[in-house]
């Protein structure tokens, strides 16, 4: 690209032109999909949020009415609170747990490392529907394994608990399942980050008498900062996205105790056909995620 002030000759300009055309031809197939089915919907999401939109009629412009209604909607605030609880509980636990597992299994023989890495990734591959079905069975209050363990084996419970039907426990159950399906990727990332740590620095520190603990926190941890940052961002996004679990297990109930923004968008769009309203919520969700990611990046860069 023309960065300096040197005058290009005709031939040079033609070459630059050619390079541009070639580049865009290579990009074209992807751009068709990307612009048409990612960027355009994103734009439309913001645009439609200012309309009263539903099926089978023209959209009516309403300005900020959708947003106003949103802030007065009690269920929206409950959904926002539950989403925040899910994020604030699951993100730190996922990160700490996966760091611990990764550092423990990376010291093992290669075969054991990859076997464990595989096992912890399995719930992700199994797919959200299959995972949800089996957990639904395990949480069932008559035939579920949790009530059996709690009542007959450990004797903690004196009567079976309706785990998913009780507002006290439902959200906790959802978070537990979410945790098992979200640690896989961070573990893979941490194992490879631990592999890539500069070994000579660690050895030098050990020669100088550093304990393994010191070597870990003073040498390895700072080098893994970019990975940690990436993991924080993807885990946060993942927790916001948790949908199948809620749709298939509780549908937001009982008494909205597991209602999340993601599910509420779906509910508004596909049960009530309030497209504009749902889009306004999507915009708010995107803004929240953007702010959180920005904070995480800022914090990561300062360290």
């Amino acid at each position, binding site marked *: 690209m023309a960065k300096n002030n040197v005058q290009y000759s005709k031939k040079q300009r033609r070459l630059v032109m050619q390079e541009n055309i070639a580049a865009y031809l290579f990009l074209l197939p992807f751009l068709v999909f*990307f612009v048409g089915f990612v960027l355009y919907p994103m734009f439309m999401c913001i645009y439609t949020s200012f309309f009263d939109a539903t099926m089978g009629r023209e959209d009516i412009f309403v300005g900020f009415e959708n947003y106003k209604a949103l802030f007065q909607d009690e269920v929206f605030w409950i959904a926002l609170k539950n989403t925040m609880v899910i994020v604030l509980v699951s993100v730190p636990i996922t990160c700490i747990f996966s760091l611990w597992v990764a550092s423990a299994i990376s010291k093992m023989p290669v075969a054991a490392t990859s076997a464990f890495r595989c096992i912890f990734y399995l719930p992700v591959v199994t797919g959200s529907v299959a995972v949800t079905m089996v957990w639904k069975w395990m949480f069932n209050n008559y035939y579920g394994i949790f009530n059996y363990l709690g009542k007959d084996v450990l004797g903690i419970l004196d009567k079976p608990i309706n785990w998913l039907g009780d507002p006290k426990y439902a959200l906790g159950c959802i978070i537990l399942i979410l945790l098992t399906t979200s640690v896989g990727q961070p573990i893979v990332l941490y194992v490879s980050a631990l592999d890539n740590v500069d070994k000579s620095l660690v050895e030098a520190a050990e020669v100088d008498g550093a304990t393994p603990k010191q070597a870990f926190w003073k040498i390895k941890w700072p080098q893994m900062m970019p990975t940690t940052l990436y993991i924080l961002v993807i885990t946060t996004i993942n927790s916001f996205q948790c949908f199948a679990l809620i749709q298939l297990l509780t549908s937001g109930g009982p008494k909205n105790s597991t209602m999340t923004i*993601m599910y509420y968008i779906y509910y508004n769009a596909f049960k009530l056909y309030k497209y504009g309203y749902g889009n306004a919520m999507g*915009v708010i969700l995107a803004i929240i995620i953007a702010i959180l990611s920005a904070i995480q990046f800022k914090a990561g860069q300062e360290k």
Partner: protein
Amino acid sequence: MKNFNRLDAEQRRARIYSVFSWILICVIAFTFLFPLYWIITGSFKTKQEILSSTPVWVPSDWVMTNYQNLMSKRSAPLFQLSAFGYTITGPTVPAAIRWLINTVVMSVSSMLLTCLTASMAGYALAKKRFYGRTILFSLIVCAMALPKQVILIPLLREMSALGLYDTIWAVIIPIVGWPFGVFLLKQFAEGIPTEMVEACRIDGASEWRTFTDVMFPMIKPGVGACAIFTFINSWNDYFMQLIMLMGTDKLTISVGIATMQGENSTDFGILMAGSALASVPIIIVFLVFQKYFTKGITMGAVKG
């Protein structure tokens, strides 16, 4: 002397800690494997065993009734081809078979299309200098950071307007547009020395030949990672499938099983059989291509 003792104690503590963490990891790994074990054994249990309040750890005799029930619940034509106004309809088969076929077709098409578009775009982003490159790249990164569910309503309306709603394309197209593959392959292509590409151009090869004969073979491991990643993710992309597909003969296996849940909410035998059908094939694919998959995950993270 004192110093040595300190080290000794520390070493002993380190060893105890490592044994302790071994055991703990094994226990946790077991609990991670358990749901999968429960799906597979559950799908072979009799109704009494499934509905007993004391769990039956291993089915006493492995019965196929759950699979038979699953297969007899709903049916759909094996395939439907229409061209020039004629429609050829295949023989009627259990819907679950059709759902599996749909899922495979959908995942394979998304995989092939993504690999093709992403390898070309990744190459251009990594090795070409063109106007708008920085803007395009930042758009890609921003799009990746947003949950794609945010755009579900506009996407649904767009698909209806294009007449693609309730077709397999409504699921495939958003996957191909999702920029993760481009991002991954751009990282890969950046690792290839630019001299290779230039030398090829100087020798008189066309742009296209430079790509197919020089660039593509060298980013093959990256393409493999992208392929397996896209395949597994589109197989499990329940959300998009749920929204875009309606008709019994159009569903994928995940959505199919999910709709069966609505009808037989406590017949866990059928649900486990369906879950096994949905998950075992993809788990096998994952185990076979595990190495590429891991590479895909870690490569995509290099620059976050």
